[in-house]
């Protein structure tokens, strides 16, 4: 390796000069001294240009750049419109979910004072479970309510804000005052006082503020109570306790595990300062299910998430700590990638044919697998002229595509109507484990729902229902079911039948277990059991007919509606089902990337030669060479051995001409890099050995 290259290699990271473990000292050349000095970085104001360019041309033209600007713009606008509507919905769902707890907490804060709590600090314990973000929303809304009514405010303290008592008190006081007065108000408040200047952590400041504002409730919320140091918590709380007669504190503790676990970790003296109530925030899973349901069953919906994406999303919520916000971000990303990267998505914006009629878009449509299937179906149906038209006439193709997009969107809506109907049925038929909408949706989107066990069980259970149960079931069905089901007729028939036979108790169908009789016959000392129908009364026969009608209609409806969405022509436009960008983006793998970069540096760097033969070569960065040697060693490795091996790599390449000292410095540099990655440390067992502390591929 030539010295110039080496110098470059060592100098390539000027920014890491701060924490560089090893470097080669080069005295500055006298002539160039002034010019070598790094120029000061200027603040570059990028705000001015960003303001204009954000709306224009966010999306790049697709189809090899042949897409026209209007289409790209249209895609962007459609995305914006669609997502803002969905986002509003998500927001309202989140608010709705919190509403119950918020009302409880608010009334607790209003009703409780130290007097009602036996002189202890009124404390609300809010268990949030894995739904970590809900507390933030809750607290900000609580703050809004309290400050608009002039009763006080909420001070949120996080464990990061509370390294010690002084700082946390400072933060609390500052937050309480800036909450209503703003930052300048705080400065003014501290300086423009009548008396001597107070220390920043003196609760007298807060006391003054409370007296001046007439605050009735000052809520102190510890968002992640578990992460607080118990000693600090004890100090803080005892301080509040002693000020309680002057400052109306209420404490809200956010707990992610359980009240018992939390209480068990606090000292007894600390627990005895607190008294209050326990609130529970709804689990994140419920929230996510509701969000998903509203996204997919939206009557104005244009884009649907396919089953791959749905299962990825749901897996993420069930297996990991994930907030509803994170869920909605993932959905947003999915929407975004669809509109960003799929030229067909322009069709969702219901464009005027003039803007989109491009050769390239039509070519793209002709290359779709669903187009091929559609043509094959047309051919089988015996209309080759249509197919020829589609293949040759761009205008006709676009028209067809657009009409199929809207038809397909309708089909998707119907599928979700059916899913909701099934869910409504299941509320009545399943007693123990209730399937939720998202589980059903995954099956529906993969086209398996109709043949699934769930639906079979559901229909079988409906058959056995007596009239007492069937009535409410029919009443509770959603309005979205089509008229073709003739539900109204069934309902009226049932009502008249029940009315006329009201005296005889509930009607039973022939499928009901009470309606079949087991006969026992003894033949040659063997008992034969035979099931037979008991004689059904006339009204029961009538009722059975109604039940049969209902079940038949349902079965027909479900088979018609619950198709596989991938069979629809143009489904690529309105169904987003690519698992990959989503999964890759939301599970970053820094360690994997790091290990790969070190083990195979030419996966990332451009190699000057074709480094195919030897795995370790001099052309690789020194750290990578050392890392690969390190991989070959055991848990303890002698530094001298490592050096020998490292040197051998260079020696074999350069023969006798290699520079000992340069290689040694490279070795040290690589070693300090590995150390800063946390891969090696000095061993305590043997002084001249290094201990390996990271293994590849874990």
């Amino acid at each position: 390796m030539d010295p110039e290259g080496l110098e470059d290699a060592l100098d390539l990271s000027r920014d890491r000069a701060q924490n560089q473990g090893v470097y080669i000292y080069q005295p500055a050349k006298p002539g160039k001294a002034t010019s070598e000095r790094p120029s000061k970085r200027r603040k570059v104001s990028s705000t001015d240009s960003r303001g204009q360019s954000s709306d224009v041309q966010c999306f790049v033209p697709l189809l090899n750049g042949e897409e026209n600007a209007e289409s790209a713009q249209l895609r962007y606008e459609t995305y914006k419109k669609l997502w803002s509507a969905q986002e509003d919905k998500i927001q309202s769902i989140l608010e709705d979910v919190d509403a119950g707890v918020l009302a409880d907490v608010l009334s607790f804060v209003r009703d409780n004072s130290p007097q009602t709590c036996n002189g202890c600090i009124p404390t609300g314990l809010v268990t949030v479970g894995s739904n970590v973000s809900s507390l933030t929303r809750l607290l900000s809304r609580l703050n809004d309510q309290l400050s608009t009514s002039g009763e006080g405010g909420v001070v949120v303290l996080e464990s990061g804000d509370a390294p010690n008592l002084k700082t946390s008190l400072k933060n609390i006081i500052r937050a309480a005052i800036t909450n209503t007065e703003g930052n300048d108000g705080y400065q003014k408040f501290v300086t423009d006082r009548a008396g001597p200047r107070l220390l920043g952590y003196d609760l007298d400041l807060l006391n003054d503020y409370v007296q001046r504002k007439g605050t009735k409730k000052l809520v102190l919320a510890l968002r992640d109570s578990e992460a607080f140091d118990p000693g600090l918590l004890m100090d803080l709380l005892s301080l509040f306790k002693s000020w309680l007669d002057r400052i109306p504190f209420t404490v809200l503790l956010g707990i992610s595990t359980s009240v018992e676990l939390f209480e068990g970790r606090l000292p007894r003296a600390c627990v005895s300062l607190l008294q209050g109530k326990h609130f529970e925030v709804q689990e994140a899973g419920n929230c996510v299910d509701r969000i998903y349901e509203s996204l997919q069953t939206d009557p104005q919906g244009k884009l649907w998430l396919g089953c791959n994406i749905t299962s990825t999303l749901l897996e993420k919520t069930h297996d990991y700590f994930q907030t509803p916000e994170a869920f909605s971000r993932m959905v947003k990303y999915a929407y975004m990638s669809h509109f960003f990267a799929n030229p067909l998505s322009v069709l969702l914006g219901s464009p005027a044919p003039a803007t989109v009629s491009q050769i390239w878009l039509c070519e793209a449509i002709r290359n779709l697998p669903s187009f091929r299937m559609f043509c094959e179906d047309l051919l089988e149906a015996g209309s080759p002229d249509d197919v020829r038209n589609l293949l040759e006439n761009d205008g006709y193709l676009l028209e067809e595509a657009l009409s199929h997009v809207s038809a397909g969107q309708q089909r998707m809506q119907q599928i979700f109507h059916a899913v909701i109907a099934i869910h409504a049925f299941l509320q009545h038929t399943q007693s123990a484990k209730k399937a939720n909408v998202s589980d059903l949706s995954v099956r529906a989107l993969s086209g398996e729902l109709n043949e699934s066990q769930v639906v079979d069980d559901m229909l079988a259970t409906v058959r056995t229902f007596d009239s007492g149960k069937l009535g409410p079931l029919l009443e509770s069905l959603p309005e979205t079911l089509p008229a073709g089901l003739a539900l109204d007729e069934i309902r009226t028939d049932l009502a008249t039948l029940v009315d006329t036979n009201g005296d005889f108790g509930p009607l039973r169908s022939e499928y009901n277990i009470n309606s079949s009789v087991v006969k026992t016959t003894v033949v040659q000392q063997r008992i034969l059991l035979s099931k037979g129908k008991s004689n059904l009364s006339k009204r029961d026969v009538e009722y059975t007919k109604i039940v049969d009608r209902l079940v038949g209609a349902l079965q027909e409806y479900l088979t018609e509606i619950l198709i596989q969405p991938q069979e629809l022509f143009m489904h690529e436009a309105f169904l987003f089902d690519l698992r990959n960008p989503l999964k890759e983006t939301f599970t970053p793998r820094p360690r994997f990337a790091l290990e790969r970069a070190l083990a195979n540096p030419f996966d990332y760097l451009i190699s000057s030669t074709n480094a195919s033969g030897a795995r370790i070569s001099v052309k690789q960065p020194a750290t990578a060479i050392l890392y690969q040697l390190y991989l070959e060693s055991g848990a303890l490795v002698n530094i001298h051995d490592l050096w020998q091996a490292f040197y051998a790599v260079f020696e074999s390449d350069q023969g006798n001409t290699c520079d000992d000292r340069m290689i040694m410095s490279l070795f040290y540099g690589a070693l300090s890099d590995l150390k800063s990655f946390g891969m090696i440390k000095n061993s305590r067992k043997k002084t001249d050995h290094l201990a390996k502390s990271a293994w590849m591929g874990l």
Partner: protein
Amino acid sequence: MQPADVARSLSSQWPCRDIQARQLASLLHPNTPSLPTLVVHGVSATCKTTIIRGVLSTLEVPHAFVRSSECITARHLLTKILWNTLEALGQKDEWEKYGKGRCEHVSTLVVLLEECLAARAEGQRGKFVLVLDEIDRQREAPQTLLSALARLGEIIPSLCVVLVLSSTPRPLFLQNAAVPHVSFPPYTRKEAIDILLASPMPLVESLPDETSSRVYPHFVATVYDTLIGPTAGSIPTFRSICHQLWPLFVAPVVQGEAPPGGNAEWDFTRLLVKNRALFRRQGESALVHRIVPEDTSAPSKTLRKPLATSAAPSALPHLPYFSTLILTSAYLASHTPQRLDTIFFSKFSSSSLSARNKRAHHRRRLKVLSQAQAEDRAAGNDDPSTPRKGKRTKTRITKSTLSSAFATSSATTSAVGGGAGITGPSTILSARPFPLERLLAIYHAVDPNPPENPINTAAVADQIYAELATLRRLRLVVPASGHVGFASTGSGNTSADAGEKWCVNVSGDWIGELAKGIGVEVGEWLAGGLD
């Protein structure tokens, strides 16, 4: 006013503190020469502060009161002393004259106090009392603070400093001989009962006055003997327990139940016999303060409530699948000695009979060992003087340790595991810190749904880090930097690499339950598990 009169006027409101009130009154009386320093000590809830305040206001001595527990630093305390003095002397508006209201050292305080006391009007140049409440609890106090404050009174003749301590002072702790001490001892049985009877009785509707006045004194005495006396409870606890239990105690009378034995009337003995269980259950739970009080509104219901429901733990937290698995691995990593990793977790010794036997052998060995350690520790606690450092724990198992371990095994586990289902450790080996790489390796070993093609699937380490961060925020897993235990990190909880090693912070059966939920049997790898 004479000291005896002061004591008499106070005793109607604060009974049983006559002697102390008289001592204080005579020492602080405006006509007696000023005393430089006075120490008042006694455990908490013995009426120290109240009596001092009462005496001072009855005698109408000018005084300033500083609650030392409200001062964050020593400087804060000194500043507060100055301000409160100024306020008491009515010189609050002239603060700029006295060091601009700043006071950073005791020596400054002496000068400033002297100045402001000298600035008083001619007629008010009497005694001035400065009360420093809970001064022994002062945060960040320098060692010399107490004795320095005690000198204040010597330097300024008209000043009397009263130091209120809640711990018993060591002899000569002020480095000064002959400082008068007034001690506030805890109330005796008779005093406590008298105080409680003097305060109004809790009201119970539709209870005849005659019955209550007859039964209540006995009841109070019984509560003291059963609950308060043995636990050294204070008067407020005493009162709150009486108020809690009294409605339950007289519930049979209120509900009109017929007294047993054909008697026409309920008397104390019969009520006590009827309510035997009350003292055991409600009473003991009343002694332990909980943040969320248990509902005792419906006496008839709570009395009949079976023990199981009241002791049942509330819903335990539920973690997502992946986090549960990580927590389980962390638990295993903490509770399995590292040298046995290859035996327990290696894929090469997975399921053959001999391997299983080997593992079972090690589990038993570990269990016995851990119990031996526990015993050792117990013995060590009994005799703290034995030097424990440097002594190597022998892993040799003698016959006696074996037999004693088997004898105590059931007792220990059941005793510890009783509390609310979370606290009980299923193994007695204490949690030990482990490096992160070991957690990852164990994760791969215990994963119930291992990837089908481990070569091609991406590494999960990065996802594990993310979840571990959340677990850490919940304090289920904590970085073990030097010490074991969760109180170790003093500050800066957010810094990520405080230590290279981690430690699981929640012990026991809860993790076992969680792990069972995702199909991992923790006992298979633990000392004493599966037995």
